[in-house]
């Protein structure tokens, strides 16, 4: 009788996760791109929690991505190249930054949130730029040397270890997020979305929940950044750039906000298209990207997953 969601996996979901596994065997020369796609997917997932589920406008989510990247990168550069601990520390640093800034975010209204998130992203960019002795500045951070995972799996040029590593991390975090959005906490986020005014009246502290989800989103973004640093053994200053935050939002809107899978699908489509098209003509790419965004907002707000969901509804209604 109840429609409360369970943890059961649908066939479509199982099929979805078989794709990256199959890709490992079918496209052995594209594993580096594959890792990049999955990292972008994890990054987009973190934003989906904040923007899709909690409806917090953030124009500077790259701040946490960058913090995670530089944490992991700097650790590895200075001799602490163990991958998993690097991930954990990156998550902690990014989450702490998210927690600190969340107090500014939850207090303000949308314009304030925009300003604060944008401002923090820009400030971190400037910091990385100025403090080039630490970060390598514009040239980026190189010399990131990774140790082997569990002492066994080394990061080789074929990208195989990196791919599996990224896939496993993505899957684990995705699962956690999947439970979260179906949990009481997830329901309360939905409550904030659907009826923010009623939430205090049923005894719920809205700002506390927003702080929690923002912190989690920041932490996951930090993990994504760390993965980038570890798998490419390099950290460019653009990890903090506005372009990265903007591209991220486009990925998420393209895939569809509030579905979790939308983040992954949008990231995949965007990254693959970018790989083909952006190098052909960057001006055209930017123009059509802008156009895509305008089009999506006006006519296809649910993104790819939203459109699929609508089709599915129409189909099952027959």
């Amino acid at each position, binding site marked *: 009788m*109840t429609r409360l969601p369970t943890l059961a996996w649908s066939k479509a979901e199982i099929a979805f996760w078989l794709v990256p596994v199959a890709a490992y065997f079918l496209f052995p020369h594209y594993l580096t791109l594959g890792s990049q796609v999955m990292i972008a997917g994890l990054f987009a997932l973190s934003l989906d929690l904040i923007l899709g589920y909690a409806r917090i406008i953030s124009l500077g989510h790259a701040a946490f991505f960058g913090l995670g990247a530089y944490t992991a990168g700097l650790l590895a550069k200075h001799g602490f190249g163990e991958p998993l601990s690097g991930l954990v520390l990156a998550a902690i640093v990014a989450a702490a930054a998210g927690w600190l800034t969340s107090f500014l975010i939850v207090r303000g209204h949308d314009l304030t949130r925009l300003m604060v998130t944008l401002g923090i992203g820009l400030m971190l960019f400037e910091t990385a730029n100025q403090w080039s002795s630490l970060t390598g500045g514009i040239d980026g951070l190189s010399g990131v040397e990774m140790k082997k995972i569990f002492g066994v799996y080394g990061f080789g040029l074929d990208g195989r270890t990196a791919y599996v590593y990224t896939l496993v991390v993505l899957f684990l975090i995705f699962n956690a997020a999947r439970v979260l959005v179906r949990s009481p906490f997830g329901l309360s986020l939905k409550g904030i979305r659907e*009826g923010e005014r009623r939430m205090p009246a*049923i005894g719920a502290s809205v700002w506390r929940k927003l702080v929690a989800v923002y912190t989690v989103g920041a932490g996951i973004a930090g993990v994504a950044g760390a993965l980038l640093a570890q798998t490419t053994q390099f950290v460019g200053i653009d990890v903090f750039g506005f372009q990265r935050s903007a591209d991220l939002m486009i990925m998420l809107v393209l895939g569809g906000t509030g579905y979790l899978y939308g983040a992954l699908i949008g990231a995949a489509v965007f990254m693959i298209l970018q790989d083909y098209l952006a190098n052909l003509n960057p001006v055209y790419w930017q123009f059509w990207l802008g156009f895509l965004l305008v089009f999506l907002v006006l006519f296809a707000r649910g993104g790819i997953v939203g459109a699929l969901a609508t089709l599915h509804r129409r189909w099952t209604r027959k």
Partner: protein
Amino acid sequence: MSAALRTQGLSKSFGDFKANSDLSVAFEAGARHALIGPNGAGKTTFINLLTGALAPTAGDVYLGDERVTGLPQYARVKRGMTRTFQINTLFPGLSVLESVVLAALEREGRGGVWWRTVSRESAAIDEAGQILARLRLDRDADTPTRALPYGKQRLLEIALALATRPTVLLLDEPAAGIPAAESAELFQVIAQLPRDVTVVFIEHDMNLVFSFAERITVLVGGSVLVEGSPEEIAHDARVREVYLGEAQHG
């Protein structure tokens, strides 16, 4: 014996406009207390001050022995004071069941649980089911709130409040917009609440007020005009003049 809920010199001004002036009102435990008055008398403002939706310009609110002035809304709900809204303030995209389960979970303190799904929260789900059954909303459990007819939405308003297990329940025009037959039914539900719940309600329908209230406070222009039993109020000349007289004329 201290009152379940009382105010001391509670005032609220918006610029020069005094919405509530120096209100010192007490609601006894277990009361069925009506708050009436003409439009603009400041009744909803008073509820907002009691619940913490608005901060007072002066004065205090006491829930039992505890001074709750300055506590945010959600904290007061946790201490047992819940309200319903005159205009439906629900969760349009949540189903009826989801809404009440959410309220029950928050009351249980399980609103922060993120590691298991809602479907496994059997205590909250059972409780929600009981509340829905009591209000005859159980058939509509899976209906999205926005698809509910208005009358059922009003019932959901109350269901959400009941899920918080209040000791003090403030109802802001619970029967607003509902035809007479259905509103009597709605008030039956309220009348069946146990005596350990103090009920304060704002209403304009005098039939409902005199049927259910055991005590009535009349608010006019932000101040208390008179307070007393239904008989006293019905025979009070000032009340007649200010309020009941208007109602009879239209």
